[in-house]
């Protein structure tokens, strides 16, 4: 034993020498050691590596993508680091080497699991280990890590904002703004021409839909076209394409943009964009837990933030750390508490802690918050670093757990533990009490609203049955009518007299730094990662202080002057909503796997401007883009341009876009005359359930709610109720994660909705009933103005007149024509 140990230590040293400095020092080695190594290396090359390949790599190699038990055997580094149970091979000491124990089928661990190696193979392995386990293979792992790291350092998105002079295009006539100069230069370099300006009516419909999500009224269209037109022009002439260049048109456009930006409906439209990113929902999935009953305040906060043009930096700060910001007025405090709802409305594990480990649940919550925050503000997928250093992006595991510590030290979600390894049960979003304010508007629930979850309804019925004989006095949670109150009394929505509540975050009772969890396994604790931020972004922000979670510092770090990602990501999101495609098309992925920007200089120009000149103002940036020449281009297809740039990345035209679900629903409501433009003051309606007779239940949303703009409809993370079908049919985003770019699918289910849904049919009927019936062509003109935002062309007029003649009577004719126009592609496309 003694001699073997001595031998082992000697071999280990020798081995390290060999592998690290073989060529330099080999000459000075003793002959005996040299011989051992040579023999070992030969043994390895002839037999051992083959044994590994044949029997082990399937489960333990990078090539197979598997590292069972955390062990890979395809490099010296792999087995030296070993797996869950430590180093697999101790050079020079077969008996102490786990790998040797396993292949000898001793001590319980038996590898390979299906068949023992032959005696000869086992003996060779023993000998090779005894000889110091020389393994000359190049380290695959090291190479991979080095490659990823070098790639990460080159990542364009984390480099400082690059300010270049605005380019001077050859064509000096076209550009009106700096944005135009950037775009035009790009077009010229590719040999492309910009498209002509679109018709004023098209421009009007475009900005109306983009800024407010509503259609312009016929009289607004006609007035605007008149204002734009030179006196000599015929306002109805669709070919009058240059009329947007006149001083009058410029003035009219500016007035219109300002009017729309000032409209309350702007926040309803643009707030919804952010709600996609915030994975907003009112009702959690059926994974258990309570609905986010007070989440509507967060929704309204977002809408108000866009309407009041809250600077983006304040918007970021409030959502991450609103509760930690200095107190000024009760109103402001309330607003900021509500903002932290952002952290509370995630996709929480229902009862995920199967192993009975609350630690797991809390880490899962932190994981969701890390993913959401990093996607929303940085468009980086930090979540990957939970288990390993990010393979592509410059995010090491330590950074992940540095952020996890921040969220572990915060409390945005309420869990119950039933102890004794019983696991954790999600209870609800954390409720924060709001200071009472003078203006009751967003902070008091509608009087008398009692909202119940259906499941709870069922439970109540059972409880009532069970408790009908019991004395309510003995049970403080039992109401006189027999309904069992939940322990926290939260079954009922806030009653008028109750203090206003919101969902939101607070500091946790314990502020702590998180341990790295090796491979993301909760029980496998590595070193402590002090709370902090991503190391790939330079920062002057101080690390979190001992007594605070660090959310405030996290927000400051996101907004740090040296951080180029936050403004880049933010302006790219704005661009995406205005043009249908971001300058970086992968709006939620600015990492290595994302795409590079089509116009890097423009992106940085806008990012810089957004942060400095515009003081993080959305409205100012949007106004600038909307009044550019680029934005008034026609959406028409040009074959020659399309050959050069088929996806329109260089913006040689305005890409036509399908209306989003809410815009479709709202505009249909507008045309039907049923849209109630007053904001809803709360979301979760007292909906009723309808038993379908087969055990399934459908939720019926009251008419009153459905008549509101769709942004005020309740959002269900579980299956959408049938009444809200239009959302699911038209690509409503997944509310379980941050979504910056919605799918745009073209599916027959959408056509079926337009053909057969009661809502569309009723809209057609209502339109048919309400148009002024003068001459057929005048009425058709009105119909087109309402639906298309422009008068019909001569060809269209003919088609529609012919269709009228085929109908059995005029009523049917009007209805059919109106319905056809609603089904046609022009209605559901923004041009």
């Amino acid at each position: 034993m003694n001699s073997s140990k001595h031998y082992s230590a000697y071999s280990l040293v020798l081995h390290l020498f060999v592998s690290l400095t073989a060529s330099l020092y080999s000459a000075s080695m003793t002959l005996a050691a040299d011989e051992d190594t040579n023999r070992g290396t030969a043994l390895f090359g002839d037999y051992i590596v083959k044994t590994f390949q044949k029997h082990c790599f399937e489960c333990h190699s990078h090539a197979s993508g598997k590292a069972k038990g955390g062990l890979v055997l395809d490099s010296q580094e792999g087995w030296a680091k070993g797996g869950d149970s430590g180093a697999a091979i101790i050079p020079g000491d077969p008996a102490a080497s786990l790998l040797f124990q396993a292949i000898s089928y001793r001590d319980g661990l038996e590898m390979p699991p299906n068949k023992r190696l032959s005696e000869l193979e086992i003996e060779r392995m023993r000998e090779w280990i005894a000889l110091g386990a020389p393994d000359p293979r190049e380290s695959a792992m090291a190479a991979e890590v080095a490659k990823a790291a070098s790639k990460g350092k080159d990542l364009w998105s984390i480099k400082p904002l690059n300010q270049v002079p605005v380019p001077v295009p050859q064509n000096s006539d076209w550009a009106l703004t700096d944005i135009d100069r950037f775009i035009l230069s790009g077009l010229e370099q590719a040999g492309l021409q910009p498209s002509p300006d679109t018709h004023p009516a098209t421009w009007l419909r475009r900005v109306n839909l983009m800024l407010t999500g509503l259609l312009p009224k016929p009289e607004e269209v006609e007035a605007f076209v008149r204002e734009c037109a030179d006196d000599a022009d015929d306002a109805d002439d669709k070919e009058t394409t240059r009329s947007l260049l006149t001083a009058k048109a410029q003035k009219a456009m500016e007035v219109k943009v300002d009017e729309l930006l000032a409209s309350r409906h702007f926040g309803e439209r643009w707030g919804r964009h952010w709600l996609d990113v915030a994975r907003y929902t009112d009702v959690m999935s059926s994974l258990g837990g309570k609905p986010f009953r007070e989440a509507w305040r967060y929704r309204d906060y977002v809408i108000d933030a866009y309407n009041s043009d809250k600077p983006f930096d304040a918007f970021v700060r409030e959502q991450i750390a609103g509760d930690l910001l200095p107190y000024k007025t009760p109103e402001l405090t309330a607003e900021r508490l509500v903002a932290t709802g952002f952290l509370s409305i995630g996709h929480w594990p229902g009862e995920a802690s199967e192993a009975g480990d609350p630690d797991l649940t809390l880490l899962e919550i932190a994981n969701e918050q890390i993913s959401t925050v990093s996607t929303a503000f940085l468009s980086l997928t930090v979540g990957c670093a939970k288990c390993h250093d990010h393979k592509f992006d410059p995010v090491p595991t330590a950074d992940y757990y540095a952020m996890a510590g921040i969220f572990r030290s915060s409390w945005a979600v309420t869990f119950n533990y039933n102890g004794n390894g019983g696991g954790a049960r999600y209870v609800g979003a954390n409720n924060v009490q709001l200071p009472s304010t003078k203006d009751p508007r967003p902070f008091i629930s509608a009087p008398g609203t009692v909202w119940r979850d259906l499941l709870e309804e069922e439970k109540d019925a059972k409880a009532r049955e069970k408790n009908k004989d019991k004395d309510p006095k003995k049970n403080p949670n039992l109401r006189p009518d027999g309904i069992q109150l939940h322990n926290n009394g939260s079954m009922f929505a806030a009653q008028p007299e109750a203090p206003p509540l919101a969902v939101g975050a607070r500091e946790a009772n314990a502020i702590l730094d998180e341990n790295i969890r090796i491979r993301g396994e909760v029980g496998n604790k590595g070193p402590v990662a002090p709370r902090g931020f991503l190391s790939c972004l330079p920062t002057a922000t101080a690390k979190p202080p001992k007594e605070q979670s660090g959310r405030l510092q996290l927000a400051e770090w996101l907004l740090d002057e040296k951080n180029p990602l936050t403004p880049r990501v933010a302006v790219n999101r704005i661009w995406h909503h205005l043009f249908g495609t971001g300058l970086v098309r992968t709006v939620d992925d600015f990492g290595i796997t994302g795409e590079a920007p089509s116009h890097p200089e423009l992106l940085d120009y806008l990012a810089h401007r957004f942060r400095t000149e515009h003081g993080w103002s959305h409205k100012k940036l949007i106004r600038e883009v909307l009044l550019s020449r680029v934005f008034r281009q026609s959406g028409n297809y040009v074959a020659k341009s399309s050959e050069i740039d088929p996806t329109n990345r260089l913006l040689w035209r305005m890409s036509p876009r399908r209306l989003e679900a809410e815009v479709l629903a709202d505009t249909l409501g507008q045309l039907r005359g049923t849209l109630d433009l007053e904001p809803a003051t709360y979301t979760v309606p007292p909906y009723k359930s309808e038993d379908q007779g087969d055990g399934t239940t459908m939720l019926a949303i009251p008419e009153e709610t459905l008549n509101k703009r769709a942004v005020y409809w309740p959002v269900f993370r579980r299956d959408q109720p049938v009444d809200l079908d239009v959302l699911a049919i038209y690509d409503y985003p997944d509310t379980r994660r941050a979504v910056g770019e919605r799918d745009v699918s073209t599916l027959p289910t959408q056509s079926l909705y337009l053909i057969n849904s009661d809502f569309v049919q009723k809209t057609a009927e209502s339109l048919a009933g309400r148009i002024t019936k003068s001459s057929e062509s005048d009425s058709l003109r009105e119909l087109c103005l309402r639906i298309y935002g422009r008068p019909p062309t001569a060809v269209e007029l003919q088609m529609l007149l012919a269709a009228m003649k085929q109908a059995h009577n005029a009523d049917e004719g009007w209805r059919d024509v109106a319905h056809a126009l609603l089904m046609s592609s022009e209605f559901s496309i923004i041009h």
Partner: protein
Amino acid sequence: MHHQTFTTRRELLQRSALGFGSLALSGLISQQNARAGVLPGLPHFAPKAKRVIFMFMAGGPSHMDLFDEKPELVKYDNKPIPPELVSVNLRNGKMKVGPKTLGVGTVGEFKQWGQSGLGISTMLPHMAALADDLCLVRSMHADNQSHPTAVQQWHTGSSVLPRPSMGAWINYGLGSENENLPGFVVVTPPMDSSLNCGNIFLPTKHRGIVLRDPSSPTSEKIRYLGTIGQDRAQQKRQLSLVEKLNRQHLSDVGDKDQMIEGMISSFEMAFRMQMEAPEVLDMSQETPETLALYGIGEEPTDAFGRQCLLARRLCESGVRFVQVSAPDNSWDHHTDIHTKLPESCRAADKPTAGLLIDLKRRGLLKDTLVIWGGEFGRTPCSESYGFGRNHNPYAFTTVLAGGGIKGGLAYGATDISGSESIENRVHIHDFHATILHLLGIDHEKLTYRFQGRDFRLTDVSGNVVKDIIA
């Protein structure tokens, strides 16, 4: 109302061909069985099955009472069960097994069935009679002890993070056999179907189309599909106008706009679906004998029988993946197991067997994979608040039949009390890998790149269980 009735769908299609645009109606029938939307390179090898019917027994049927007899338990029926008989995992899990914990003996009784002599409960006489066609995978195991996470893992492989459903993956890989119908249809949804039958990051068209209410024959089966008695002539006239407007729009915009072209073709597809789907979903032409086979028109089998018959009709018409689900948690027998388990069996047994028999006699069973099972199994011991079994993800049985499956086989085994799978264990990932394999898909190669990572149904795991493949 103006009515014009057409005698057959074919006639209607032919007539409508005159007006409705570029719709290649004459080719429609021949295209019916064309494979639409198969990914390049698929199948990776010759498939044993072409389509799947997934019968989800929500709640977790009791494997030890139905498919995996445990005689030892009988000794401890309603008596304290020695804790060491219950596996360590279960003892240390959510359920506390103490000295007073009561065992639950076999509910009902077992019999040997068919030539294979498979042991199956007499509570499932119709299914058991088909024992020689069934493969009982007795060694299933999963990772979650509560319904939502377990159901999610059963459908998607993932317990918490949203991932595409197996039906969506299969639809993504193989598409529909019939281009007029979706490739993934959910007759009755499981809980949280947007998650469990969702496409998540796969293209939207691969998500499960949920038919909401199959038990009511007059209800819409696909939302907004319209009804058979609708005035088609009026609608056709209108759709021709829409098409004219769209074509005009296309030419105004410049003749090559993909979105407008997409809308035109989606209207054509919608029109074809309107023609074909109502007929597929209409069960009125089935013979009384077939209806009786599924237990339709009698209780307690009517509701599930309709679902099963619809599943057959959809499969027959070329839908790639059809899911039917027992009502939420209907197999979740925590209490009164002696009354409630036989009830659940009665509701599911005859319809399931009817479906298998019907598929077989139509020659469909040989290339249709039928999966029958719940998200987990149950415990050998009872809970304190009522007599029944708790959740057990460490052991359960899944029943397979049809395309590529060895019939009359019991694969794998659990321990003495049925608390843990011990022999030839099959994890959900292995199970998913095997299903894909039967369809000719290498589960490691069917991937989708999302946020910079290649995702797959089996994540980083999964071994094909070759021993159950014929």
